[in-house]
């Protein structure tokens, strides 16, 4: 290390300046979040995330990079991640709300009560909470144990009577999790009517840059005593159904991205449902996964069947993957009660989400000696 490096490093520490020059950061201020893991001690891994609050989509991730080692290069994971839609059909057929694209809803305020510092929380501006927290066991082998850590960014979209908690979690092992939680108050005009909240995520995954990506459809099958796993590459734009018995996943890879063993690195997008995934009469709800070619005008989940109607090649291309989750809400007495002339309600949070787990990103896990 040169004397110049030492001096600049010392200066950065002393003055509190970021060691990331502003011109190289891509985003700045509260919109730039960088987190090393473990939180204390020598760095093993690190995330660098840019985020924005946008009308309609709420909390949007505008870039996410991961580093597997302080001496390894950054790897781009996301160009853009957003909740493209939250479709809410009621069981009696109407209304059928499009809670993201029909409104310019904003994130609601968060305070220290939402985001307690004692639990690793810190507010980023008025509407977003950053939590750096323990994530439970990462590994256990009899007397040996390793607990994991994660960075979570969340904000709650004020969607009329509902609040939607939009949470993005970046784990120490490179895992990325997206969740939506529906809460606040049931629809006042029919508060006991069952309904489904369907968040649809649009994930512009750009592993190692935006060209050269492919998506394989992971499927498990059993024949007699034997199990088989297949991962055929998806050649053209399409929708895919998630079968829980087949462990279906979208396996995203880049033609140039390999680990130190020369193994292809993948990110495996998997469903993380609570109870199930719904189907409705609208064609875009007839599939759980979709793969499209990047097009900056293709942002609307309800148009997915149109986007894939003339299927463009998506192998070795700039791809976007979509995932639809579902929250089936059957109101109960805990949702509230009718009082004179009105409804006094409190819909407790229900969640759905997805997880993107790295596969051959590391040469070996850095978390276990």
């Amino acid at each position, binding site marked *: 290390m040169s*004397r110049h490096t030492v*001096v600049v490093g010392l*200066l950065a520490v*002393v*003055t509190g*300046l970021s060691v*990331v020059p*502003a011109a*190289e*950061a*891509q985003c*700045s*201020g509260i*919109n730039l979040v960088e987190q090393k893991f473990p939180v204390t001690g020598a760095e093993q891994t690190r995330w660098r995330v*840019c985020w*924005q*609050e*946008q*009308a*309609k989509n709420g909390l949007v991730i*505008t*870039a996410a990079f991961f580093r597997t080692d302080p001496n390894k*290069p*950054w*790897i*781009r994971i996301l*160009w*853009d991640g957003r909740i493209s839609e939250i479709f809410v059909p009621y069981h009696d057929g109407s*209304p*059928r*709300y*499009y809670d993201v*694209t*029909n*409104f*310019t809803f904003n*994130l*609601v*305020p968060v305070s220290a009560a939402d985001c307690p510092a004692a639990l690793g929380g810190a507010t980023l501006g008025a509407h977003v909470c950053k939590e750096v927290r323990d994530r439970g066991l990462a590994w256990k082998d009899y007397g040996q144990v390793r607990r994991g850590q994660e960075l979570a960014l969340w904000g709650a979209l*004020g969607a*009329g*009577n509902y609040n939607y908690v939009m949470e993005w979690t970046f784990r120490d092992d490179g895992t990325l999790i997206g969740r939506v939680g529906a809460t606040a108050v049931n*629809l*006042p*005009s*029919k*508060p006991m009517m069952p309904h489904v909240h369907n968040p649809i995520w649009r994930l512009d995954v750009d592993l*190692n*840059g935006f*060209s*050269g990506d492919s998506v394989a459809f992971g499927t498990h099958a059993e024949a007699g005593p034997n199990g088989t796993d297949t991962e055929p590459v998806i050649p053209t734009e399409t929708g895919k159904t998630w079968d829980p018995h087949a462990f279906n996943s979208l396996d995203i890879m880049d033609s*140039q*991205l390999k680990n130190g063993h020369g193994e292809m690195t993948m990110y495996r997008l998997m469903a993380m449902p609570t109870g199930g995934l719904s189907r409705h009469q609208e064609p875009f709800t007839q599939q759980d996964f979709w793969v499209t070619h*990047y097009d*900056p005008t293709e942002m609307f989940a309800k148009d997915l069947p149109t986007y894939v109607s003339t299927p463009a090649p998506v192998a070795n291309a*700039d791809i976007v993957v979509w995932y639809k989750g579902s929250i089936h809400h059957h109101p109960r007495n805990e949702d509230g009660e*009718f009082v004179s002339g*009105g*409804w006094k*309600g409190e819909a407790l949070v229900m969640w759905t989400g997805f997880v993107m787990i790295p596969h051959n990103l590391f040469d070996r896990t850095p978390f276990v000696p």
Partner: protein
Amino acid sequence: MKTRFSMRSHAQDISRIAIALLTLLLVARPLALQPPPARPQPLDPLTPAERRQADEIARADGRVKELLGAGRTRLVYVDFIAIKPNDASPAPDSPTRPMAIGRHAEVVFYRYDDDSGVRAIVDLQTRAVAQVARIESAEVPLNAEELSEAMALALKNEAVTSLLGADAKTFQVGDTAARGVRPRNVVHALRVVATSDSDPCWKHRCAQLFFRRGDVSLTDSVVVDLTAQQSRVERGQR
């Protein structure tokens, strides 16, 4: 002798570094305390000035003007959009080697006469509209300004003031995000998208208003037709 000389040299080096550090600290500390530079980074949110500029550039564009027509229109929103460069390099980018993406804004308008929208992508660096397209009504969200107008329209309806009672005019449009404090009387709005031509909101811009007084939400609601400038009370579940 050699050792002694080396020690002196080392001590001189340390003192030079210390002096340099202190000097740099004196210079850099005030810089570090200064507000961030006015020029945003590529992925920073749009500044208020950029939003105004995007609106102006879009409205001045001939294609946008043509698509907006001569009837009643509204700016619905201006927001950030990141556009990937066309000349995509296969080389991976990184935080320390970012690609140049410029600054772009998405500007969306609504036109009442034919229930459609116009979406323009504005390149803020070249001060030009990069893309423009007509979009369907469903892709044009209601904005807070329209909700305020809907509430004002509703309050002109005696059936609505009768429903709300003496404090009808104290209800505030529920964009509490901006204020941070929830008023006692709040009105939330959801959009009505008609699914048949028998619905008065068919091809019209409609909002359904829900009223909350303290912890209690009225089950009755009000549907406001912003196109026809009318409202009606809808009875809810009891």
